[in-house]
């Protein structure tokens, strides 16, 4: 073990590996990034300090714009799925553009991984070198998020890195698209680039392109996106070098360190100002119901449900600790996460919820602490466990954190910042033979604009938000029809998709897609929530609607069109009698989870995708009648649900619209409140009854399996569970008749920080 580095040691003279170690030790010894107790540049001339920051921010934003223009993916060009960042030599994030900010941190992980694994020695770092990664254990959420970085050299001195990430829409996995839901092991995820040097002298190697051409279904998407990333990273590098010439290299390197230390301090201050200290607990679940689906690996758990108990501790100094202790074992499914993915989620969450001045960087991360247990779904001890749908885990997790944050901001009086953000965002992948007669594959990124959760002072954002990119967008249907052999029969509001509340969640929408000009199209759906609610409300607000996916094959649509009979546009106002199934005959499959089509779709088959609405805020009986009228006008709520859930009594207006009868509604609401009280039971009584069920293991199998698994990992969870229900240490879920969902997982017992790249 190396000794503590003296504080005055010049980090710049040592190997990168030693420097990374030195930075960590200095933080531990002094509490400050690189030991910076003072911020001399900032104190001496705050204006110059801000001038450089402003310049660097301008550089990354401009580079993202340029890079995106080269891209081929509608994901990058049409809906902004990219980000550019600047890093210190040690890989600590300094400044970034907008976009998918989760990757500000995953790129950081990638650089640190290369350093830890002696890339400085071989292949070495030189001006013009290009490195690429999409291996999630090295740094990432799932493999379509591909990152390219290049070192910045000032003469012979490495002074930083620039990099760009894009989400590529086809990755050559077991099924077409970018997020194969069937992937249980990494070998079926697609083309994985493991921290590889892909070019030098600012040029991509030819063999890189050759491999892509022969390994993915839409090589143009892959290669042009690679060119986009390289363009963005190189432009940022050159601009940074021009800036260094202007400000001086020593000023630049010292200033970036001060930016990080400033952000660390600002993060602590912000937390102290905006949140109430204490321990917050929230829980959610995520799942995948895939049993019996075609193509499933023999290893795979068909049906997986993961419990996600999250604990956030805010201390008096503003430090936020987020503990994942209590998450279950990793599984043979596509939804495993990695610490890098969860930490990346922290970045995108903080940047929207607390640090929206755009000053988030590695310092903000240093002011927080994330703790993981090895062997669990957030840190598999099997590097081959698939993370193809890492977001399946990451999104519900951060949705939980947002709910905790909503309580914390509300308690502190920052009601206008109280916001439930989002949760899982369903989507579909498709591939086969396209309308040009070519092999294709892709993810339809219209998913990138769904409903948000409600806000503390108004409804959520309708059809315009996803938690992983605040600059959300669904693009144009006419553009997606260029990529997929499909005709949109509709793109419209999905009524009642939001969680009801005093302020409702943002509403969702639906697309009805007719297979057109293709004789073979494989379809899978992902990032769906099947049996669990991860899009809950707060303070009496309801969760969003359960979304369904309808697949209808061998339809009579062509005949209907020929006969000019009414065509469907979606689910209609009543999901118990969907418009689609009323109007069209064919072989129907309805799924409310991730799914693989049994057979390739062909001309005339239809799929109805639903994009979600999110949870509400406050009691729907407190909803302003004027807001109900506006929702009725726009088709966001149906009259039946406005009456049933909000207690609205409606009159038909002369123009055919609805008016809420204020007086009658007030009376009806009073009646509903009385009925609620009449139905209520004392909590003590209810708990005693539940305790009896638990004591005799009279719970659904899925719950018993979750509890057995979690309690085998987490001493803390088991202790708290016993305390809560009043059991002694003799009570355990470790009984033979409950299935062990993953007997191979490492039971590490306690959560801890996971920042040593050599462990990955």
């Amino acid at each position, binding site marked *: 073990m190396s000794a503590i580095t003296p504080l005055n040691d010049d980090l710049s003279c040592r190997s990168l590996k030693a420097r990374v170690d030195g930075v960590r030790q200095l933080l531990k010894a002094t509490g400050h990034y690189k030991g910076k107790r003072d911020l001399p540049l900032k104190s001496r001339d705050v204006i110059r300090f801000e001038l450089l920051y402003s310049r660097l921010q301008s550089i990354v934003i401009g580079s993202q714009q340029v890079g995106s223009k*080269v891209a081929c993916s509608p994901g990058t060009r049409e809906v902004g799925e990219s980000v550019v960042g600047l890093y210190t030599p040690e890989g600590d994030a300094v400044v970034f553009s907008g976009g998918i900010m989760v990757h500000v941190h995953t790129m950081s992980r990638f650089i640190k991984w290369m350093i830890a694994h002696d890339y400085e020695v071989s292949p070495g770092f030189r001006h013009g070198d290009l490195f690429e990664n999409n291996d999630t254990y090295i740094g990432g959420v799932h493999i379509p998020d591909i990152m390219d970085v290049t070192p910045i050299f000032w003469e012979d001195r490495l002074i930083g890195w620039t990099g760009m990430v894009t989400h590529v829409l086809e990755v050559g996995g077991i099924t077409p698209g970018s997020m194969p839901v069937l992937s249980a092991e990494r070998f079926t995820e697609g083309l994985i680039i493991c921290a590889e040097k892909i070019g030098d002298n600012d040029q991509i190697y030819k063999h890189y392109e050759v491999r892509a051409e022969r390994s993915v279904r839409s090589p143009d998407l892959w290669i042009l996106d690679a060119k986009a990333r390289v363009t963005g990273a190189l432009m940022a590098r050159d601009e940074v070098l021009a800036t260094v010439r202007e400000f001086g290299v020593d000023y630049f390197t010292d200033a970036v360190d001060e930016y990080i230390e400033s952000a660390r301090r600002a993060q602590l201050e912000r937390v102290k100002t905006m949140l109430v200290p204490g321990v917050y607990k929230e829980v959610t679940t995520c799942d995948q119901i895939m049993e019996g689906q075609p193509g499933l690996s023999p290893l795979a758990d068909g049906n997986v449900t993961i419990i996600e108990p999250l604990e956030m501790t805010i201390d008096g100094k503003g430090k936020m600790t987020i503990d994942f202790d209590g998450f279950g074992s990793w599984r043979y499914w596509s939804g495993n996460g990695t610490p890098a993915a969860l930490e990346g989620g922290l970045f995108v969450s903080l940047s929207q919820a607390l640090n929206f001045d755009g000053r988030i960087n590695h310092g903000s991360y240093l002011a927080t602490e994330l703790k993981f247990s090895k062997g669990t779904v957030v840190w598999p001890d099997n590097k081959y466990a698939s993370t193809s749908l890492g977001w399946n885990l990451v999104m519900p997790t951060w949705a939980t954190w947002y709910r905790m944050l909503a309580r914390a901001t509300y308690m502190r009086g920052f009601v206008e910042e109280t916001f439930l953000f989002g949760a899982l965002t369903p989507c579909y992948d498709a591939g086969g033979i396209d309308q040009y007669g070519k092999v294709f594959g892709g993810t339809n990124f219209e998913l990138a604009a769904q409903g948000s959760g409600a806000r503390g002072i108004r409804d959520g954002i309708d059809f*315009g938000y996803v938690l992983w990119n605040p600059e959300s967008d669904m693009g144009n249907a006419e553009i997606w029809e260029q990529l997929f052999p499909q005709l949109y029969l509709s793109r419209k509001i999905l009524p009642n998709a939001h969680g009801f509340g005093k302020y409702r969640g943002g509403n969702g*929408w639906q697309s009805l897609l007719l297979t057109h000009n293709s004789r073979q199209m494989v379809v899978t759906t992902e990032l769906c929530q099947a049996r669990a609610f991860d899009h809950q409300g707060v303070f009496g607000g309801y969760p969003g609607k359960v979304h369904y996916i309808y697949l209808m094959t061998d339809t009579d649509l062509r005949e209907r069109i020929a006969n000019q009979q009414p065509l469907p546009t979606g689910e209609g106002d009543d999901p118990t009698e969907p418009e689609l199934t009323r109007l069209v005959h064919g072989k129907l499959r309805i799924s409310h989870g991730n799914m693989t089509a049994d057979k390739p779709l062909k001309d005339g088959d239809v799929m109805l995708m639903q994009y979600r609405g999110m949870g509400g805020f406050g009691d729907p009986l407190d909803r302003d009648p004027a807001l109900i009228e506006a929702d009725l006008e726009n088709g966001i709520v149906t009259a039946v649900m406005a009456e049933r859930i909000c207690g609205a009594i409606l009159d038909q207006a002369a123009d055919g619209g609805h008016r809420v009868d204020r007086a009658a509604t007030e009376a009806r609401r009073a009646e509903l409140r009385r009925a609620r009280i009449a139905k209520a039971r004392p909590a003590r009584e209810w708990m005693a009854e539940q305790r009896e069920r638990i004591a005799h293991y009279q719970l659904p199998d899925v719950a018993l399996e979750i509890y057995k698994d979690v309690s085998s990992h987490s001493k803390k969870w088991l202790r708290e569970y016993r305390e809560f229900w009043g059991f002694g240490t003799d009570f355990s879920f470790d009984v033979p008749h409950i299935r062990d969902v993953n007997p191979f997982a490492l039971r590490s017992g306690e959560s801890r920080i996971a920042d040593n790249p050599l462990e990955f």
Partner: protein
Amino acid sequence: MTREVLALAMDAGGTMTDTFMVDRDGSFVIGKAPTTPWDESEGFIESSLDALAQWDLDERAAFSQFEVAVYAGTTMLNTLLTRTGRRIGLITTRGFEDMLVMEQGRQVWSGYSYADRLHAATHVHNSPLVPRRHVRGVSERTDMFGKIPIPLYEHDARRIAGEVLDQDLQGLAICFLHSYANPANERRMAEICREAMAARGLDLPLYLSSQIRPVIRENQRVNATTIEAYAADPVRRQLHNVENSAVARGFRKQMTTMLSYGGLANIRHPRLHETLISGPIGGMLGAHYIARILDTPNVLAVDMGGTSYDFGLITNGTFNLNNEPEIARFRLALPSIELDSIRGGAGLYLSVDPITNRIIMGPEGAGANPGPVCFDRGNRQPTITDCLAINGYLNKDNFLGGKVKLNLPAARQELETQIAAKVGLDVHEAADGIIKLWLQTAMDATRRAIQVRGGDVADYVIMGYGGAGPLVLAGVSEGQPFKGVVTFPFAAAFSAFGCTTTDYSHRYTRSSLFSIASAADTAAKEALAAGLTRLWNELEAEAHESFVSEGMDLAKVEYRRVAFVRYGGQLDEVEVPFDRAWQGTPADIDHLLERFEDLYTKMFAKAAKYPKAGYAIFQVALVASIETRKPEFPLLAEQGPTPPAAAKKGQREVYLDGRWQSAGIYDMELLEPGNVIPGLAVLEHPATTLLVPGTRQARVDRRKFIWLDNLQRGEPST
């Protein structure tokens, strides 16, 4: 000798209506009057009378002499912002009836600052121009190839036409999916609507997306179409008022207006939404004209206003076009001269973040009313203008020609308590720093604009205009190797001036579906050439029809062909002007693709080239124009470096680079060709101020353009 006037151009902004009047000798005069939104013809007349009075001209005689009169107003923008347009309906493809309520997701954050784009809690939708109850869908579908897999359901169409027309509307828009590729279904729907109107004795205007803007992306197309339907009528009314009031004073021609892509059009032009961003475009046109006079191909034009800082590029003598601008938070399909705009105007509010102790500029600003603290109209939150005022950049007694007296003690006090004390700086030092930060933000944005388009700052001349453009010119060019830095005595009415410098021209666009492999054979090139010829011929026929209906002489029309080229699979394209006579041969295709490769390599890194993917052309355009008579800038005799005594107004203390320095104050209007004014100096005009720092000198050239030479770089070089 009697003065003979030639052209009149007017730019009606939110506050003031500026007139630029030019005579046959190239002399010009500027008039100003308050804008009168209720009837813009009042402001029009007042502003022209203000100009005419300075030349002591008779109103009727002058109006009868004008060859060209251009009016660029703000009615359309105001109509959109205040939602006071017509009651219109929309018929769209069944299943897409919610498209205006849903919008494209990005519209919830469009027009936001960087910080607010991240801060999702602030995101909100536009309220739709057409309420949902006035929107109907008809069963039909055209696909991307222009084929019709679902024919228009005629019975459906008739029923819906009836339903919509029974709603007491004033206009009707029709937008079907992929109608740019095949307009048949939209046209048939329009026929059915006309039949239904005839049966009801109605005559509503119909707006078809395939006519208004036949390009891909339904959200942008429907926005262009509904904006035309919603707001064109009030604009046309205003333009007719303006024309009538001119005609009543003897004007014998037709009034013209400015189109967003830089041409003039008769006010009867069928696509008036193309005038939406006409005002700022005037400045770009002026810059373009002067660039030609100066024989400099690359220009960066900057206009600093109260709330926004606008800038645009002229590269190799041509404008960049933006095909999807955002206006009033609507993103619409509308080719417009590309102007970047950041919330960086001089009216930006200043504050200190209580958590990070950082100075925050904006994103909101004080606007013209109540204005900065120094205006003394009730606002107590300091702005950048207050920094400029207390540090001596502005003349406290001559702001807007003395119409506003600046209260410096009030501004100083608010800056002291709200900003300087919190960040531990002296108030003037803080103001100096804030001005520097402000200028750098503007400079970074402008540099970025050049780099994003693959240019090099050293190839560009920077031109500053607008009220505060000259004031920031030195700052935004500081440390940057611009080829030259220049402004003009008429900088304050530059947009109006620009309107007199453009040709009568229209731009026509069509979506297309051409692709060609990188190593295509002659037959493939011939096929592509034939396809392009066919489309350009169609556009030429459209131009003919339009020019004839506007009474123009077809013999004078010149055509310019443009193709939008991309690598196969890409979604962004490069606008490639075809710069020689089009013969429709394989050699022309080779030339077009070579031009694309050249432009692409300039815009992006070499590593971004990918000819292997082949090429695609999904849009073509034709620009048809007739040259108009323009102002001239004759070369005047040099009068020596020393300015006339009358031009020197005195000295004033200016706080710059950390200390108070004495600056010479000059009257800009009295400077003569050849005059050289060393920095530190302030050149004042009633409506604008030019700052000349100590490292620079102001040099008046033989056309009376004012150059800011950088002495440290040894300028002027000649």
